[in-house]
């Protein structure tokens, strides 16, 4: 019987899933089992759209279709938390299995704090994530740095500090550090991320720490909750997945990989935040001075939601019809999310004016976190 804190190498029993999935297809097999056994009513996962740069979130109710979501897409710069909220809101009793990155997990936790999602209705299969790459920049990077036609690439991965592509006629890897020094590579918020293994999910899965004869053929699974333990046990019992205990050397290597990623994250925080600190208000003023008030940052923020309908009119401090809007338009949002910004980067990724909004709100939150306790909980009063 699996218990919280246990660590396994896990792989799919089904030969087809084993082939389609990455690292043994454990997540695909677990989602498939959760769905077919009735533990969940639907699965939310990401499948490949037109090409590898096109990640499409998909709700699946037919277990046979889960395999279509096998494999990772690092150019999928999505955040799933609001989609989960919408699904749970419109399917009042349904339970959902979701494959989540760290930012998805944090987004759901913030929504749960606000009573906007019920985590008991979710089974979260966490995947460790070293970061994602914006699709437009990825195509440019592959064309210019890899000197490969981006349409010929059929697979990409981030492994051992390299961005690796496989294409018709070969494969090529370039060190992420080198790419990022030249302005390519992962999104800025991903570089600063320190939540690489989502241990607040029910199971934390990934390839870090899978060594020996299981390397590339199994997924490392950390059991993070009772719900996660139950799923894993039931899936093993039903013959959907196979497991064996992770070996100590593998656990040690997993720790080292995670540690290296955290060091890199801290390096980027230092670099970005120090540069910002040198002219904080000047930079924020200048950058947000390009704002066209499209509300994309608000609509896509996992922490900013609905009351905003009223904000679209006039407020005391943000006058209607002004472009750029009064600085309070942004300060209001920064203040609102000051202890909740999860640095998911959606505001920045989807800003049509390329304002580095996540840099600002992330800097504000980390500064605040270092100075104040306790952190947010929903106050039981209104004042």
């Amino acid at each position, binding site marked *: 019987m699996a218990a919280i804190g246990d660590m396994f190498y896990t792989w799919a029993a089904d030969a087809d899933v084993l082939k389609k999935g990455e690292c043994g297809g454990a997540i695909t097999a677990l989602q498939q089992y959760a769905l077919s056994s009735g533990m969940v009513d639907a699965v939310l996962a990401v499948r490949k759209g*037109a090409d590898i*740069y096109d990640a499409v979130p998909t709700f699946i109710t037919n277990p046979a279709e889960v395999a279509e979501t096998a494999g990772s897409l690092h150019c999928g710069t999505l955040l799933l938390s609001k989609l989960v909220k919408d699904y749970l809101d419109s399917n009042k009793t349904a339970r959902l299995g979701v494959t989540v990155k760290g930012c998805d997990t944090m987004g759901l936790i913030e929504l749960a704090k606000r009573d906007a999602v019920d985590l008991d209705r979710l089974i979260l299969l966490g995947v460790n994530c070293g970061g994602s790459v914006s*699709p*437009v920049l990825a*195509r440019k990077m592959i064309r210019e740095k890899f000197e490969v036609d981006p*349409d010929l690439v059929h697979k990409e991965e981030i492994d051992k500090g390299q961005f690796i592509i496989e294409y018709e006629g070969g494969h090529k890897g370039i060190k992420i550090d080198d790419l990022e020094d030249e302005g390519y590579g992962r999104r800025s918020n991903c570089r600063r991320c320190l939540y690489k293994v989502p241990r607040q999910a029910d199971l934390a899965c990934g390839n870090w720490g899978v060594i020996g004869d299981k390397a590339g053929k199994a997924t490392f699974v950390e059991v993070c909750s009772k719900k996660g333990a139950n799923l894993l046990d039931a899936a093993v019992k039903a013959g959907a997945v196979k497991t064996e205990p992770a070996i100590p050397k593998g656990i040690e290597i997993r720790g080292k990989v995670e540690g290296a990623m955290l060091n890199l994250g801290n390096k980027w925080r230092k670099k970005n935040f120090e540069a910002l600190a040198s002219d904080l208000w000047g930079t924020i003023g200048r950058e947000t*001075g*390009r704002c*066209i*008030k499209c*509300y994309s940052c608000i609509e896509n923020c996992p922490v900013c939601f609905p009351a905003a309908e009223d904000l*679209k*009119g*006039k407020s005391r401090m943000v006058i*209607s*019809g002004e*472009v*750029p809007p009064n600085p309070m338009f942004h300060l209001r949002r920064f203040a609102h999310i000051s202890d909740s910004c999860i640095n998911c980067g959606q505001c920045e990724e989807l800003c049509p004016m390329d304002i580095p909004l996540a840099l600002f709100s992330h800097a504000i939150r980390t500064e605040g976190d270092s100075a104040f306790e306790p952190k947010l909980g929903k106050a039981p009063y209104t004042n």
Partner: protein
Amino acid sequence: MNGAKVIYADPRYTATARQADLYMPFVSGSDVAILNGLMQEIIKNGWEDKEFIAKRTKDYEKLKEVVMKDAYSLENVSKISGIPVESLKTAAEWLGTTKPGAILYSMGITQHTVGVDNVKSVANIQMLLGNLGKPGSGVNALRGQNNVQGACDMGALPVVFTAYQKVTDAAVHKKFADAWGFPDGICEPKNGYEVTVMMDVLTDNPGELKCMYIMGENPMLSDPDLNHVRHALESLEFLVVQDIFLTETAEMADVVLPAACYAERNGTQTSTERRVQMWRKAQDPPGEAKEDWQIISELAAKMGYAKQFPYQSAEEIFTEVAAVTPSYHGMNYERLSKPEALHWPCPTLEHPGTPILHKEKFSHPDGLGIFTPIEWKPPAEVPDAEYPFVLTTGRVLWHWHTGSMTRRSATLDAEVPTGWIEINPEDAKALGIKDKEKVRAVTRRGSVEVPAKVTKDIMKGIMFMPFHFAECAANILTNNALDPIAKIPEFKACAVKVEKIMEA
């Protein structure tokens, strides 16, 4: 930006002006004078690109003769335009000493009786500086709508078939007649009337034009001199309007055909940079609404031309476009499905498209760019004692064109619910007008009551009105004077007076 400098010229201090390193407010209609003055200063300082002029152009001496006239000294240009000499000097120096440089313009350049002169002057200064045919340079027209380039490419003009193939060219005419295969042939190989000219023909020569079929356009708000437009449309025997909402124009129609909106249809759109991009349907149109091509095909079938309009999809139509259009010849839906899509000209299936035009040569038969000497002419109507201010019109970010879509959006309506007239504080003071006070704006063509917006963001002597709002329609006031070549109306300059509204 990597240190590039932005020079911005506009009578209004807009959101773009805030981003500029040099802002030059100027009197609407003085464009040619400003550009000639800048060219004079560039030549005086020897900043012209001598090699480019020698190898890639002709008639430079003719240009020089005009722009070096004393009339275009910076002092004189300053008097005409209202731009301080120092600003003009700085602009000329930055343009002359920073390479490459791009000029981007929009309707402020084109919507004048001298619209063609203005565009040619932009081409003159860019040839003078060698700023053509390379990245970061060029004469960049920012079109007024997402697909206006595509509409023009498709021959939605009275003098050309697709891709500017002249209707009067016998070989071209035969090519299209053969391709379409109408049993009774196609229209004669002669130029038709421009939209703006049609309005004049309708009023000046009643009965010559009997019927009009207007698709996705709302001239009862977007054309100049709306009283004239109403008179013109009322002179028709039969008016058909195809649109997604019952617009001011559709209200006058005998028949309204409900169309699908942009999100309800497939197709392509061609952006201002000549990039042809896929356009994918997101949902079905409501009720009886149909895609434009379906409506036209069904109508054609009723008229006995089902065989010539056999289309089953937008893709089939695009395939036909590519077959008869040299600059689209190498395009198809498969190639356009790539995110980067293709820029025309793209003459063959192997051709990678042409993001930058005129790299090696220009489109004239000898491949040279021709300098056109141009003298400045004032707008058709200039301020006088009775109408002492220049009125210019335009858009605001929150609304699009005649507002048929955006004014139905609660969010956008909450941002900007109605129009206004911008008045400089000094002018407002002299007129005794306060901010937000409703005033009467009057031109020789009509008058509207409109709230005043007293703001230093508009130059003294100039007034501005957005044209989106039917209840205070700027185009009641504008002048129907046309550019003699392009037949574009002078939306950007006419003479106006503003009166206080006295309580009865």
